[in-house]
C-alpha cells in the first residue's frame, strides 16, 4: 500500500493504473466462475448484436425490467418471511446462458452455481433449481437464509438464459432461531446447506428433498410459503421472456441481452466516470466485532484508483477472515456491482448489470473478511456490506473535496423470541432504519431504511401477532451528527414483552458512530436499554443473540444517528431553533454543539427564539477553542482507539474543505 499517496488529487496528465498486479496470486480472481460460449448459435448472436436497432433494444430493455418488477411484486404480495416482505430483502434478475446479469442488479444472485453443477444438456424445461450454499455459490449468495431459485428459459428449443430470485427466509435451521447466529464459527452452525439441486425436474417436484429442506426450518410453513412465492415469481419472469422471444424472435432477444450488457459498460465509462475525479483515494471503516472477540474491531480498507478508463477498488489492507459470522464469502465481481451501483446517481435511467464489472473492478487479496473461504461462517455478513459502503464513501469524500454524504447505519434488527401465552414458539423480529447521513445540500433523513420500499411494522400488527406491547415509536433526540447540515435521527422505540423470553439484537454502530463528513460531527451510536430509568436498567451494546427478559420488562431500542456534514457552528440558527422546538435537538446540544443560545418564549407557535448576540459570542468562543475540522470525523470511541493505537486510519488529520458561503447558499435553497 502506498500510504503516502493517500488522497492525492490527480495531476494534469492523468495517471493510468496498471491492472496487471491484480491478476497475480496476490489477489483472488475477480470472478469465481467463468463460462464461455462456443455453441452453434453464438456467432449468429454476436453478429446480430451489432445490428440490432436502438429502439428495439430500448423496448427489450424496458420489457425485461418490467418482467423483473412483475416477479418481485408477486413475491411482495405472497411471501411470508418478514425480512422478504417488509425489508424487501429479495431480488430477481435475468442472466444469460453464460451467467451474466442483464437486468438491474446491485446484489442479485446469478446462475453460476447451476452451471457449475449441471452440464447444459442436463438442464430441461420445467426444471427449478434451488441453492443457498454460500461456499458453492460462486460469490452470489452470502448467507444461508438467502434461498435462491433459478429457472432455465428455453425458446426455439434452446436454453437462452435463467430467471432467478433469491430472498431472505425466516429460518433455515442452525443454532439460533431465525438463522442469524452472531457467534457461529463455521457455516455448519448456521443452518441447512443446500448445494444447487433440482427442486423440480421437468415440472415435477422432488418431494423427498422438499421434506428434508422444510424439516430443517423451525418455521416450515414460512419457508414453504416463501419458496413457493419465489418459484411463482421466477416463472412469471420466464413467461415474459418467452413472450418477448415470440414477438421479436429468439435470436434478437438473446442478442439484445448481450447488447444491453455492452451498453451498461459504455454508459459507465463514458457518462459516469467523468464525474469522478481521477486519482487514488483511500477509505476505511470498522466492524465493532466479529461477535466472538468483542475487544477487536475489524478493519475494512479500500483504495479507489480512478483513471479515465476504469475504476479499480483494491481491498488490500482489509483484515483477514475471522472466526465469527461476519465473513462475506464473495468475489470482486459481486462487490463491483454492489459499490458500482452508486454511480447510477450520475446517470438517471441507466441499468446496472454485468457491464459494470468491465469498467468498475474490485480486487481482493485471498482470505480476507471479504473473500473468506470454507468453512467460514457468514450469517451476519450484512455488517461487512454496510461498512464497505462506509469505507467507499470515506474515499469518495476525499475524492470530491467533501461533497459526499455523511455516514449512516440504516439497517439493523431487533427482536424477541420465546413461547407465547398459548405455548407456541414466536419470533418477533423487526428491521429498523436509522438516521441517514447529512448531505452537502440538506439534512439527513430521520428514521429511514437503506433498502428502498422497506417498511417497519405497524404497532397494531405487532400487538396482534406477538406477545408484546409497543409503548413508544419515535425518534432518538440528539442522535443526528451535528453539522451545518444535521445527520438524520435514529429510532427510539419502547417495547414491553408480556411473557418471559429472549431479546436479540443485530446491531452495528453501538460503540462506534456514523462518521461526519467535511467538518460534520459523528452521530450518536445506537443500542438498547432494558428497563430504562429503573433500578434494573441494563445497557446493551454490540450484537447479542439471546438476552433473557422477563414478562413486564420494557426494552428501549435505539438506532444510530447519521453523520453530520459541514461545520455545526455555521448551521443557520433558526434551523437549530426549529429542531429544539420539535424536541429533536436538546437545548444543551444547541448550545454546546451548534453554539446557538435559545430563550424560551410564551408564543406556543415558536416556543424558543434565538438570542442572536449571545449566539455570535458563543460561536466565536467555541471556534477559538476547538481543533481543526476533519474531513472524516469518526466520533469519540474511534478516536480513543486510534490514540491508544488499537486501530489505525490514514485520514485522522485529513482536513475538511468546508466552504461556508457555498453552504449558506445551499441552506437558503433547501
Amino acid at each position, binding site marked *: 500500500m502506498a500510504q503516502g499517496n493517500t488522497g492525492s488529487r490527480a495531476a494534469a496528465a492523468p495517471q493510468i493504473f496498471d491492472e496487471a498486479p491484480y491478476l497475480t496470486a496476490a489477489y483472488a480472481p475477480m470472478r469465481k466462475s467463468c463460462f464461455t460460449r462456443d455453441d452453434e448459435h453464438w456467432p449468429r448472436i454476436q453478429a446480430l448484436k451489432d445490428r440490432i436497432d*436502438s*429502439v428495439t*433494444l*430500448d*423496448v427489450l*430493455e*424496458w420489457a425485461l425490467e*418490467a418482467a423483473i418488477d*412483475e416477479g418481485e*411484486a*408477486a413475491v*411482495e404480495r*405472497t*411471501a*411470508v418471511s418478514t425480512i422478504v*416482505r417488509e425489508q424487501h430483502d429479495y431480488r430477481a434478475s435475468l442472466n444469460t446462458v453464460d451467467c451474466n446479469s442483464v437486468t*438491474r442488479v*446491485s446484489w442479485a444472485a446469478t446462475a453460476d452455481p447451476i452451471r457449475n453443477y449441471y452440464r447444459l444438456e442436463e438442464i430441461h424445461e420445467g426444471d427449478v433449481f434451488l441453492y443457498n450454499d454460500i461456499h458453492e455459490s460462486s460469490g452470489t449468495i452470502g448467507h444461508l437464509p438467502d434461498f435462491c431459485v433459478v429457472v432455465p428459459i428455453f425458446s426455439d428449443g434452446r436454453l437462452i438464459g435463467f430467471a432467478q430470485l433469491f430472498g431472505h427466509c425466516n429460518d433455515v435451521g442452525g443454532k439460533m432461531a431465525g438463522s442469524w447466529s452472531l457467534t457461529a464459527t463455521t457455516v455448519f452452525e448456521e443452518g441447512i446447506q443446500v448445494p444447487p439441486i433440482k427442486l423440480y425436474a421437468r415440472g415435477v417436484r422432488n418431494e423427498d428433498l422438499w421434506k428434508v429442506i422444510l424439516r430443517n426450518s423451525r418455521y416450515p*410453513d414460512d419457508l414453504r*410459503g416463501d419458496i413457493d412465492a419465489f418459484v*411463482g415469481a421466477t416463472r412469471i419472469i420466464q413467461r415474459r421472456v418467452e413472450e418477448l422471444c415470440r*414477438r421479436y424472435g429468439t435470436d434478437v432477444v438473446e442478442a439484445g441481452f448481450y447488447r444491453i450488457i455492452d*451498453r451498461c459498460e*459504455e*454508459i459507465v465509462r463514458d457518462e459516469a466516470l467523468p464525474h469522478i475525479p481521477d486519482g487514488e483515494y483511500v477509505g476505511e471503516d470498522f466492524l465493532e466485532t466479529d461477535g466472538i472477540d468483542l475487544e477487536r474491531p475489524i478493519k475494512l480498507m479500500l483504495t479507489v484508483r480512478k483513471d479515465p478508463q476504469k475504476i479499480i477498488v483494491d481491498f488490500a489492507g482489509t483484515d483477514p477472515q475471522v472466526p465469527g459470522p461476519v465473513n462475506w464469502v464473495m468475489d470482486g465481481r459481486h462487490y463491483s456491482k454492489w459499490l458500482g*451501483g452508486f454511480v447510477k*446517481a450520475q*446517470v438517471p*435511467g*441507466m441499468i446496472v448489470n454485468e457491464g459494470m464489472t468491465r469498467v468498475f473492478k474490485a480486487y481482493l487479496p485471498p482470505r480476507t473478511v471479504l473473500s473468506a473461504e470454507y468453512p467460514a461462517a457468514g450469517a451476519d455478513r450484512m455488517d461487512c456490506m454496510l461498512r464497505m459502503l462506509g469505507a467507499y464513501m470515506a474515499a469518495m469524500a476525499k475524492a470530491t473535496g467533501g461533497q459526499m454524504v455523511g455516514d449512516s447505519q*440504516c439497517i439493523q434488527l431487533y427482536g424477541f423470541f420465546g413461547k407465547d401465552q398459548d405455548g407456541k414458539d414466536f419470533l418477533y423480529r423487526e428491521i*429498523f*432504519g436509522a438516521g441517514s*447521513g447529512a*448531505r452537502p445540500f*440538506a439534512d439527513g*433523513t*430521520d*428514521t*429511514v*431504511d*437503506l*433498502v*428502498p*420500499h*422497506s*417498511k417497519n411494522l*405497524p*404497532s*397494531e*400488527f405487532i*400487538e396482534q401477532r406477538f406477545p408484546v*406491547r409497543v409503548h*413508544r*415509536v*419515535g*425518534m432518538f433526540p440528539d442522535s443526528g451528527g451535528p453539522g451545518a447540515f444535521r445527520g438524520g435521527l435514529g429510532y427510539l422505540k*419502547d417495547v414491553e414483552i408480556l411473557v418471559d423470553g429472549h431479546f436479540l439484537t443485530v446491531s452495528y454502530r453501538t460503540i462506534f458512530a456514523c462518521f461526519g463528513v467535511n467538518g460534520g460531527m459523528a452521530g450518536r451510536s445506537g443500542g438498547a436499554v432494558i428497563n430504562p430509568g429503573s433500578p434494573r436498567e441494563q445497557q446493551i451494546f454490540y450484537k447479542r443473540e439471546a438476552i433473557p427478559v422477563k414478562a413486564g420488562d420494557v426494552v428501549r431500542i435505539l438506532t444510530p444517528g447519521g453523520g453530520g456534514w459541514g461545520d455545526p457552528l455555521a448551521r443557520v440558527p433558526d434551523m437549530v431553533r426549529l429542531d429544539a422546538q*420539535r424536541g429533536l435537538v436538546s437545548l444543551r446540544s444547541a448550545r454546546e454543539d451548534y453554539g446557538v443560545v435559545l430563550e424560551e418564549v410564551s408564543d406556543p*407557535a415558536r416556543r424558543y427564539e434565538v438570542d442572536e448576540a449571545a449566539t455570535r459570542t458563543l460561536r466565536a468562543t467555541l471556534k477559538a477553542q476547538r481543533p481543526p475540522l476533519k474531513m472524516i470525523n469518526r466520533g469519540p470511541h474511534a478516536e480513543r482507539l486510534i490514540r491508544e493505537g488499537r486501530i489505525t486510519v490514514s485520514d485522522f488529520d485529513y482536513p475538511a474543505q468546508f466552504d461556508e458561503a457555498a453552504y449558506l447558499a445551499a441552506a437558503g435553497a433547501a
Partner: protein
Amino acid sequence: MAWRIGVDTGGTFTDVVAIDEASGKRYVRKTSSTPDDPSRAFTQGIAELLDEVGVDAADVSFISHGTTVATNAILESRYARLGLVVTRGYREMLEVGRQTVPGDFGDITWWLKPPRVVPLELVREVGGRLDFKGAELAPLDEDAVRGIAAEFKAMGIDAIAVSFLHSYRNPAHERRARELILEGHPACFVSVSSDVIREYREYERTLSTCLNTGLMPLVTSYLSKLQTRLADAQIDARLYVMKSSGGIIHASEMAPQPIAAVLSGPAAGIVTACYYGKAAGYPNLITIDIGGTSTDICLIDQGTPHMLTEGRIDIYNIKAPMIDMHTVGAGGGSIAWLSAGRSLRVGPQSAGAQPGPVCYGRGGTAPALTDAHLVLGRVSPYLLGGSIRLDAAAARRAIGEHIATPLGIGIEDAAMGILDLATNNIAQGINVVSVKRGRDPRDYALMAFGGAGGLNACLVAEALGIRTIVSPPSPGVTSAEGLLSTNVRSDRVITDVQREDTLDLARLIREYENLHAQVVADLAREGFRGADTAVTGFADMRYAGQAYEVRVPVTVLDATLTEAAVRNAIKAFHRAHDDRFGYEYEGRHPVEIVNIGATGFGLFPPLVTAQETRDGCSWEGARKDLRRGVFRGVGEVPLPIYERALAPIGIGMAGPCIIEQYDATLVVEPGWQAVLDATGQIVLRPTYREA
C-alpha cells in the same frame, strides 16, 4: 320530462352531459374550467347546455358531479392547517412513517422527505390505551383532550384529526375525544380515524385521517357554494358527488369524508366504460384513459371493476375504497429523451398542458408523444374544431435535434420509436392489472378513451395480442357520462383478524350484521329502500403469516351470514390466490379473515340506451380529408380522414385511416377494420385471421 345531468370538472375543461331519461338522448357540452372557483364553470356549463337544448330548470331531476377539488388540494398542499391528537408515545408517528425511501437503491443519499401533513409542533399526545382486541388498558385522559382543544382554539387551529391505537376495534375513545373537542371548540372540523377507515395499520389510517380532516373545510365550503349556485339557478335536483369507489353519494354526506372523493373523475370514466362495454356486448374490458401526462388503466370483469382499499395520490397512500386503477406516466405530453445520450426513454417527465408538446407552440422545446403522432400524420394539425393549431415543422425539428440526430436515425423512425416505447409503457401497465392478477389480456376487449386513447389503441392491442378494441361514442367526455350511469354506494368494513381454525363464527356474523345494518341505514338516508337497494358482502383474507389480503365476495342471505357462506368464501379465497399467484394451500395452511365488509347500492332506474340510425350515411360521405401518414412496416401512405358523426352503421372500414370527432381521434392501423354499431360505439378488429 326528466333530465339527468353529469358535470365533470377537469384541469382544462368542464364537461357537461345531459340525458333525457325517457328517450336516452344525450347532449354534450365542454366549457373552459375556472380553477380559481370551479363552481362557476359548473353552473355556467349547466346553464349553457339547458339553454342550448331548451330544457327547463325544473325538469332537471338529478345532478351528479365529478370533482378534482380534493385531489388538487392534496397535490398542491392546499389543505387546512390542522392539529393531530394521538395516543401517548406516538407523537412522531407521521415523522417515522413506514421508514420507506421510494425509488432505487442508493436514492437514500439524495431523497428529501416531503413535508408532513401535520408538522410535529401541531401533534399532541393523550393518555388512554386499548389492546388489539379493543379492551381498555388505560382510560382516556379527558382533561388532556379538553386542554388540547382549548390550546388549538387559542392558536387558531380549526381542524383537528384524532387517531388512537386500535380504534378500528373499538372507537369509543376516539368518539369521546371528538365530543370533548367539539364541546370546547364547537366551530372546529374534527374527524376521527375509525370513521375514515376501520382497518388496522396506524400510520396509514392516521395519514388518511389527517388528509381527510385537512380537506373538510375546503370541500364543505365548495359543496355549499354549489348548492347555493344551483338554488340561484332555480334547480332543486339532488346533488350527488362521485366517489373513488365508482359510486355516488349525496353532497351533504360527502362533506365529512372528502378523502373518499380523491379519484372522483377517473372513477366516473370507469363507470362509463362498464356501461358502454355491456351495451356493446363486451363486459370484460381493459380500459386505457390516455390524458396529457399519464394513462389510467383498469380491468373490468363482467362489467365490474376490481376494488382496492387503498391507493396512491401523489406521495400519499390513501386508505379509502377505490377502483383499482393503475397509472403509468405515458400521456400525450410525455417527453422523449435519451438516457446517457443513447437510450431512448419516454416519460415519466411530462410537458403537461403548459408548456405542452413542442407542436403546441407554447414554449415547449422537448419532444413529446403528441409531437411524434403529429410527425407521423396521425393527428390533425387542427384540434378541437380548429381552436388549436399544431406546428408540425417545430415537432419535426425537435424530434430531429433531440432524438433522431444523436441516434443517427431518420425522424420518422425516431417518432415511431417514441410511439413504440409509449405503447410499451402502457402495455406493461396493462400487464400489471391483468397478468399480475392472473388474467390474460387477450381475453378482454380494449376500451380506449381520453383525448389520446384512440391514437394508441391499435398499437397497444397489437403489443398484447388483444383482438377487439372499443371506442365509446364520446371518448373525450367519458367521466361526465359515467356520472349518469352509476348508483349510490356505501362501503363499510371492519378489521377483526380471525384464523379459520379458531374462528368465532358468532362474532363474525354479529359484526357483519352490524355493517349490513349501517349500509342499509346509509342508503335509507339517501332515500333508497327495499327493492331499490342491493347489499353484498366481502371479506379480505390471507394465509396466516402473509401481510397482504385478497378480497373475495361473501354471499349474504336475508342480511346475514351463514357458516356455509363463510366456508364458501374461504374456498373462493384459495381459488383467487391460485388464480393470482399460481399456488394455494387449501387444507394445508390456515386462512386468516382480516376484514369483513358490506357494500350497499342505491339503485337508480336504468338508463335507456339511444339507438343510432344514421340513415343515408356512408364512409364516402364521411370522408373529409386525405393526408399522408407513416406506419411501421408500410412506410408513407395516403391516409383518409373520416368524420365519426357521419359514419355508417354496420359497414367496415379498413385501416390505415383516421376517424375524427370534436374531442378525440381514432387511428385505425393497417391490418385493422373499424365498424360503428347501433349504440354509437366503434369496434375495431384485425382484418387478418390467425390460425
